[in-house]
């Protein structure tokens, strides 16, 4: 073939790419969630695995159906549905009926993600929307926390639940070590701070999470609850207890850091983390619910477009002044 007859493709520079892709990012996040899933299986039994599989498969199926209905390219295997499925299962009790898990997947994928336009356009974190959906729809089932290592899925209240309903004395014999390792009642993935930190470390090493959000989030909750602990230690639990119990670790490292639903710029990220932490503290100490991580992140999600706009306006102003 001579050079005259060859077809050449004209496209815009650059002609090389880093090879990073949504798939790569999503599968790495999925990998980072495996320690938490392993911890769930260890503490709450094999049923945890079935919950996870139900959640992941139903998320993929819902995304596939929506792709078909919207007549869009298939995005169900780009990994984001898998991450949503994994995270959703980590946010529910190990004993949750399977049909409720599927209902949660529907809320996450169809309502929170695809109805807003799909990955990249969703305002609220799909997993947290699903968690709150389930919590409000099925309050009893969503707070029936499985006791670790129980043979026939005995359920009990979580440490935060005990604190809310029975007061400080009820949690007096729960050691920090148990809280850190995850040998407590709670949703599948949130109990083991250790497993979450291992996953978070992987994401940080890969450059996939910005530390500003989780650090300000956790620090704010710690300081807020610590302040009240200092004022009256006989009434309020210690900040270390708040740090290690409930969904704070999972929420701070895996939910609040979700790229799509968190601010782009440094100042916005710090305000976002601070808001999440403050709201979590307020809900936990003074709210009707024992736990406030999911609500506080969702509330701050709603503020993200405003925070971004504020940062961008400052940038534009700075450029004009120059």
């Amino acid at each position, binding site marked *: 073939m001579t050079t005259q007859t060859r077809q*050449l493709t004209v496209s815009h520079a650059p002609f090389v790419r880093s090879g990073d892709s949504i798939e790569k990012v999503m599968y790495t996040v999925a990998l980072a969630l495996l320690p938490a899933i392993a911890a769930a299986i260890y503490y709450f039994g094999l049923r945890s695995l079935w919950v996870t599989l139900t959640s992941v498969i139903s998320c993929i199926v819902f995304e596939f159906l929506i792709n078909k209905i919207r007549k869009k390219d298939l995005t169900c295997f780009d990994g984001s549905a898998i991450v949503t499925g994994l995270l959703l299962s980590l946010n529910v009790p190990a004993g949750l009926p399977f049909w409720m898990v599927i209902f949660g997947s529907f809320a996450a994928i169809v309502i929170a993600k695809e109805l807003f336009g799909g990955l990249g356009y969703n305002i609220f974190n799909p997993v947290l929307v699903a968690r709150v959906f389930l919590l409000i729809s099925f309050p009893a089932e969503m707070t029936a926390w499985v006791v670790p290592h129980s043979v026939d899925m005995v359920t009990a209240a979580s440490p935060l639940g005990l604190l809310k309903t029975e007061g400080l004395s009820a949690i007096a014999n729960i050691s920090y070590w148990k809280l850190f390792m995850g040998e407590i009642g709670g949703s599948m993935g949130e109990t083991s701070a250790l497993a979450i930190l291992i996953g978070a470390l992987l994401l940080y090493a890969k450059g996939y999470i910005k530390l500003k959000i989780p650090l300000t989030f956790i620090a704010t909750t710690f300081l807020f609850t610590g302040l009240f602990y200092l004022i009256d230690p006989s009434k309020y639990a210690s900040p270390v207890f708040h740090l290690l119990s409930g969904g704070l670790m999972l929420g701070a490292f895996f939910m609040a850091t979700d790229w799509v639903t968190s601010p782009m710029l440094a100042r916005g990220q710090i305000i976002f983390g601070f808001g999440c932490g403050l709201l979590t503290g307020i809900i936990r100490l003074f709210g009707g619910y024992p736990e406030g991580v999911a609500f506080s992140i969702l509330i701050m999600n709603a503020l993200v477009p405003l925070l971004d706009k504020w940062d961008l306006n400052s940038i534009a102003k700075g450029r004009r002044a120059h």
Partner: protein
Amino acid sequence: MRTFKKGGIHPPENKITADIGIEILPTPDIVTILLSQHLGKPAKPVVKKKQKVKKGQLIAEADGFISAHIHATTSGMVKSIDERVSSPAGQFSQAVVIESDGQEEWADGLNIDIDYESLSREEKLRKIQDAGIVGMGGAGFPAHVKLNPPPEKKVDTFILNGAECEPFLTTDHRLMLEKPEEILKGLDIAASFFDKDIKVYIGIEANKADAIKIMEERTQGTRFEVVPLKAKFPQGCEKQLINTVTGRVLAEGQLPFDVGCLVHNVATIYAIYEAVAKNKPLIERVFTVSGMEINSRKNLRATLGTKITDIVDYCGGVTDEINQVIVGGPMMGKAQFTFDVPITKTTSGILFINNRGLERSRERACIRCGKCVEVCPQGLQPWIMTDLARLNQFELLPAYGLNDCMECGSCTFVCPANRDIVHWIKYAKVMNTRQKR
């Protein structure tokens, strides 16, 4: 090791031709000399069809202040003056087509040794202007204009740009290895346009250790200082190089001389040496022929007006897998739609590649990862500019620094959603200029 402050990436270097000496490509029978090889207005032809020309003879005159002379690159007869010839910059330009007589006969007084040290500043500047020298790194800005800044701008730092941060390209690298003496003399000439105490730096990326060594040896005891640079893209962009070497920062719209700096590329300085010391106009240049889909990869010195088809023939043809021909580097080069394109003063490389994988991957929605912000060497917000451009809100972009973007492509390189960020930014620039008219 020194580097610029903000952003940057490190694409695979692929400097395949780094150890291959510069080879001379024989002048083809027919050369097609574009009259727009520089920034600014195209030159105006001063020859007629059928006219005999000698090598180095002026064939088109600079038109206005920002323009450059064009010379016959071989001796022979003007075959035609074509109105619409596609240029590697992706535009159409007038071109003078010369049929070579094979004699390579120089016009009078050209290609001779000159005692240039006794020349005055104006005489040297005149020679550079007459030789039609433009920035050969890619921008194509007339060199004599750059060397003669307005008197109120005091230039205290002169930087020789030997960064060559684009993957694949090894043009400046080979020139520094093979012509160090000439380059240093050229640097001396260029620096002589300014104050005696001007600081002269030679910036070379660390991946060219041999060039750094040679330049360091030759500049021992002189006023020139070699500055090894961390290999990071886009180190060779003027603003980044100035920032690395002097720490100074150019605001939007500022030119290097606004911060007291002047940057010239290695190939340009070599051309300046040839113009002043040898009376040689800019009629040939060195460039890299590389990429996986050409049968032999080389560094070539070729006559301007040689077509890519001639180069392909000389390099043993292309493979069947080829689907893109890029003039320039893979980060900032231009894709060609035909092989029938002549090389110009700003052609630093020609790449023959197979990019079908890239072609097939879809552009997805922004997932707001923030990587484009992280890598932008100008500290811009490429994501919001892309979003706005896609919504046709072009007039909103300048507020975020649209015109401060030099289209280096770092953002597009890292984007996991595969967004064509640079494409949208460039599109917005074009649409904004159109609306102003």
